């Protein structure tokens, strides 16, 4: 198995997480899913990464970005992987 460069921290059945999953699929992006605890107080792993205990959170090794909040993530994915062809990716933000 090759290691996808995008890791999605998610909570089972969380609609905000599914929103991000939909966007990842839309752009054909490979990602690794890491499921965390429902209990807020036990979500140390996302707190360490993003500074918040909320999910979804993504870590994108392509760009070095770590981010939470589904609206932000969707916008980020759109901006980074949307519309522009693959060959033009990684040339900075719009």
């Amino acid at each position, binding site marked *: 198995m090759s290691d996808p460069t995008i890791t999605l*921290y998610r909570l089972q059945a969380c609609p905000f997480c599914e929103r991000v999953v939909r966007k990842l699929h839309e752009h054909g992006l490979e990602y690794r*899913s890491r499921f965390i605890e429902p209990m807020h107080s036990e979500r140390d792993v996302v707190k360490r990464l993003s500074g918040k205990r909320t999910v979804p959170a993504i870590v994108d090794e392509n760009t070095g970005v770590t981010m939470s909040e589904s609206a932000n993530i969707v916008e980020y994915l759109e901006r980074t992987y949307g519309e522009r062809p693959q060959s033009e990716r990684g040339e900075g933000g719009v």
Partner: protein
Amino acid sequence: MDLDFDVVGLGEADHPAEGEKAPEFTRPLVNDEFWEDVALSELCAESEGPVVLVFHAMDGAFPATYVWNEIRDRGWHEQATVVGLSISTPYAHKDLLEERDIEGDHRLYSDPANGVAEQYGIAMDLDGMTGLAEPRPAVFVLDSDRTIEYAWVGEEWPSFPDYDAVEAQL
């Protein structure tokens, strides 16, 4: 166990033997913070020492408790990568890791549909729990390319691994 009656016999299992390659599978592997799909081959390739794969009764059943208490106290994780596998969900596994105080050093595969036990030829139906099946108690010690260095599969129910024999492999 010394009992003055016969325990349930399971007969011989047709499981992969020492020297053979352990069947490959991918299942959610639960640690103290999250779970993610991990292939057995990946686990073996990344392990510094051997991998000890422990099939056990569902979380909460006394054999699961006994087995993990013993493995924890023996400190196998210092020489090996020690992972369990049961039909319990990742949520139950999180509790087991915490309750047995094995967080951080041990991880547990979750296989509610019991497909891995079927691949390994060690599936057993549970009498009185219609529709449920789980693995027989079993221990496999694997090297970095999944070759089986030691295999033990229980032939009675309940039964417990020969811990000293496993330890001799580490």
